[in-house]
Structures are given as structure tokens and as C-alpha cells.
């Protein structure tokens, strides 16, 4: 097995294109354990961390560009980013220990294509777009369309996710991400729920996005839950309806981390709770702004 550390995207793509057994990595927090568990060794591992654009987190006008290989800790330590996307930041901050978060990346979390990836529901509810370096230049794909099944993505072998584009949220908008794990840290999500809400001036929901992780082969967007929330004042009835819709949208499996019934039940609970947190964040921010 060879190790390569290209400094440009083109160089990385050329290496990848020239070796069918090569893979790219950022933190290797999934790659190494998978190799230990018996996955055949790649012929080459291509380290993306020497490519500046893949490591940077920056605000370009009203759009955040998050490098696909930037470690989670680059997000959790970025106060401006965290203020815009508290839920996504939470999700990034839930991936493993501090040791892991200093290596794990959003690009890796997405392309590993685990149904339980914490950051993906949070990216999806924020309409994140993956910028992908391809043979014929860059293409932009909604994050929701990148993963096609467990361990499967829509990327060609020689394509690399460069960064994620996230439009700054409009006023009255915030997000939240919750997951259920048996311990307080170090586990893979049994269920994950990301919610983004926009509240109008009267405090009613004008827009909502709900996405669930670990309850289906890929992250699930839940339009029925969104519909239940939109137009409501987040009253108990609306929250209960959203929770029920979330439970219904699950297509989970029984596995070592949870049962079908458990995942269904908890998906609803977390959806309801995450909606409440997102709304509280908006209200808190509005309260602060209201004073000016």
C-alpha cells in the first residue's frame, strides 16, 4: 500500500484516476477501522489534508464554504459558523471523541456512506450542496443525492468532494440535531434527527426541514413531518403529528445498535425535541435582536 499527499485537487484526481485500487481519505477514522475489520487494503491511500481548499472553512459573501477534509473541530471551534448552523456544528461535535474530531471530516462522514452518519441529516436540512471535482470540472450536487445506499455514493471513482456550500440562513431560521446513543459519547447513532425551522414574525413556522439518520439505508427527508410543522405555532398537536410522521418515515432494520420498533419510536421523539430546540434558538436570537 502506498501513501500519497497531493497538494492540489488535480494532482489528487490524477492519482485516483490512475489507480483503480486507490482511495482518498481525510481523517481515516473509518478507513483504518474498516481495514482492521478485514476490508481489503487499498493499493494507495491519498491524503487530502495537504490541499488547502479542502481544509479551509470560510464565508464567501452569504455562502459558507466548508472544506471536505477540514476536521470537525474546525467547525466546532468556529464561532461564526456555529452561530449560523448550531445544529450542524453539534452534529460535527458528536462524531467520536476529541481525538476523532481532530481528524474526522464532513467529506469523509458523507462519503463513508453510513446510514448513521451524524453530519448528513444536519447537512441535508440545511440544503447543503457538495462541490465535486470531476473529470470535466466541478459539479454541484445536493448532499441528499450523494449517498445512494449503505457504503454507496453517486461519485465516480475519480471524483472527489471538495467542499460543501451552505447558504447563510435567513432571519428567523435555525437548526438542531439530536441523536440517541446508549452512552454519552463514543457511540454510533441509533437514531439521528436534524431539523431546520424558519419562524415568521408571529412565531409560526413558515418553513421546515426534517431529516433522519440511521433509520433507513440512506438519510431520510420527512416531508410529512415538515408539512405538519409548517403553519403551526409548534403546539403539541403539530409536534405530535411531526413526531408520528417521522416515525412513519422510518424504514429501519434490527441490528446490534437498535431494534426496528425502538428506532421508529425514538425517531419521533428526537424530531419533536430537535424542533423545539431549533425554535428556542430562533426565539432566543430574535429576543436578542428585538432589543436593538
Amino acid at each position, binding site marked *: 500500500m502506498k*501513501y500519497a499527499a497531493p497538494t492540489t485537487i488535480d494532482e489528487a484526481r490524477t492519482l485516483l484516476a490512475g489507480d483503480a485500487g486507490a482511495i482518498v481519505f481525510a481523517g481515516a477514522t473509518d478507513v*483504518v477501522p474498516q481495514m482492521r475489520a478485514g476490508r481489503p487494503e487499498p493499493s494507495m*491511500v491519498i*491524503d487530502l489534508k495537504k490541499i488547502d481548499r479542502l481544509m479551509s472553512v470560510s464565508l464567501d459573501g452569504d455562502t459558507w464554504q466548508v472544506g471536505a477534509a477540514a476536521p470537525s473541530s474546525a467547525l466546532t471551534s468556529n464561532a461564526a459558523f456555529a452561530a449560523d448552523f448550531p445544529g450542524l456544528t453539534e452534529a460535527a461535535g458528536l462524531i*467520536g471523541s476529541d481525538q476523532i474530531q481532530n*481528524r474526522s471530516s464532513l467529506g469523509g462522514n458523507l462519503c463513508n456512506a453510513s446510514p448513521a452518519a451524524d453530519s448528513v441529516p444536519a447537512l441535508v436540512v440545511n440544503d447543503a450542496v457538495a462541490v465535486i471535482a470531476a473529470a470535466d470540472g466541478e459539479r454541484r450536487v445536493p448532499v441528499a443525492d450523494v449517498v445512494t445506499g449503505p457504503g454507496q455514493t453517486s461519485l465516480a471513482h475519480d471524483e472527489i468532494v471538495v467542499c460543501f456550500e451552505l447558504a447563510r440562513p435567513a432571519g428567523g431560521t435555525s437548526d438542531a440535531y439530536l441523536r440517541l446513543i446508549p452512552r*454519552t*459519547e463514543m457511540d454510533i447513532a441509533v437514531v439521528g434527527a436534524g431539523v431546520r425551522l424558519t419562524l415568521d414574525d408571529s412565531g409560526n413556522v413558515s418553513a421546515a426541514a426534517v431529516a433522519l439518520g440511521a433509520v433507513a439505508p440512506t438519510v431520510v427527508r420527512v416531508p410529512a413531518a415538515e408539512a405538519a410543522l409548517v403553519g403551526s405555532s409548534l403546539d403539541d398537536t403539530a409536534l405530535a403529528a411531526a413526531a408520528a410522521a417521522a416515525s412513519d418515515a422510518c424504514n429501519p432494520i434490527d441490528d446490534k445498535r437498535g431494534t426496528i420498533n425502538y428506532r421508529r419510536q425514538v425517531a419521533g421523539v428526537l424530531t419533536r425535541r430537535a424542533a423545539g430546540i431549533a425554535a428556542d434558538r430562533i426565539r432566543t436570537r430574535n429576543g436578542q435582536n428585538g432589543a436593538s
Partner: protein
Amino acid sequence: MSRTHVNCEVNGDAVDFLTEDGESLLNALRDELGLIGAKEGCGTGDCGACSVIMNGRLQCACLIFAPEADGAAITTCEGLASADELHPLQQCFLEGAALQCGICTPGFLIAAKALLDENPDPTETEVRYALAGNLCRCTGYDKIVRSVLEAAVQIRTPA
């Protein structure tokens, strides 16, 4: 088989070693440089016994490919003490009986150092979450957490 030549700085010393590309930094530190403080408890980033600080960031050396260390600055448990004095964390661990078998101790010390470098006055909860990536099966964590909190006090208010 060909091996890659890696130059880096470990505990302030310029060092170099040869490694197979697929080897972990952990094995390189232990086998090539003889720095046995970092331990392999799992090899998958789940136990923290191999914690090192590389380029200012706390990481598991078992997840780092050895060639990644080229040009990097690395601190291991062996680099905590000065010639004549232990690091306050080491001293507090000794006095607070924060180790039993000791296999996890180097990793805890490094993780705790990374925490205190960033947050010199952590709460108990912050200590517990910052150390959640380090498994200890002997102590129940009680004396480790107390010792880290005590070391934080000592570092903030040197005698």
C-alpha cells in the same frame, strides 16, 4: 520492500525514521523510535491509549498513517516532563492515585494536557467529556477526573 523516509519533530527533537506506507504512526513511534508510552488498546480510535498531540491537535496515533507525520510536530507522554520536574498532570496523577494498571495513563495525560492547553479552568463535566475518548477500565475515572481538576488549579496558580 521499499520504505518511506519520514522527518518530523517529536517532543522537541528532530527525528527521522523509515516506515512502510501502510504502517501507523503508533507503530512507528513505538518500534522505530522506541517511544513506548503510547499504547495500542484497540487500533481503531476507540480507546485513546495511543493519544498524541500532532501539530497542536489531540489525535489517536493508531489512525494516523506514519508518512502523514512528515514535517509534523508531535508530543507524546514522554515529552511532558522536563529534566528535573514532572508536568503538574503527572504529579497530580501520582498523588491522586489516578492510575492502577497504568496502561491508559499516557493517553489520559496527553488528552488532559490538550484540554488544559485549550481550557485552563474546566468544569468537572467538561473534563469528563474531554476525556470521553480515553477508556480506563480500572479506576472508574473518579480519581483521574479529580487529578485533572487539581492539576488545572496548580497550573493556573503556580506555587
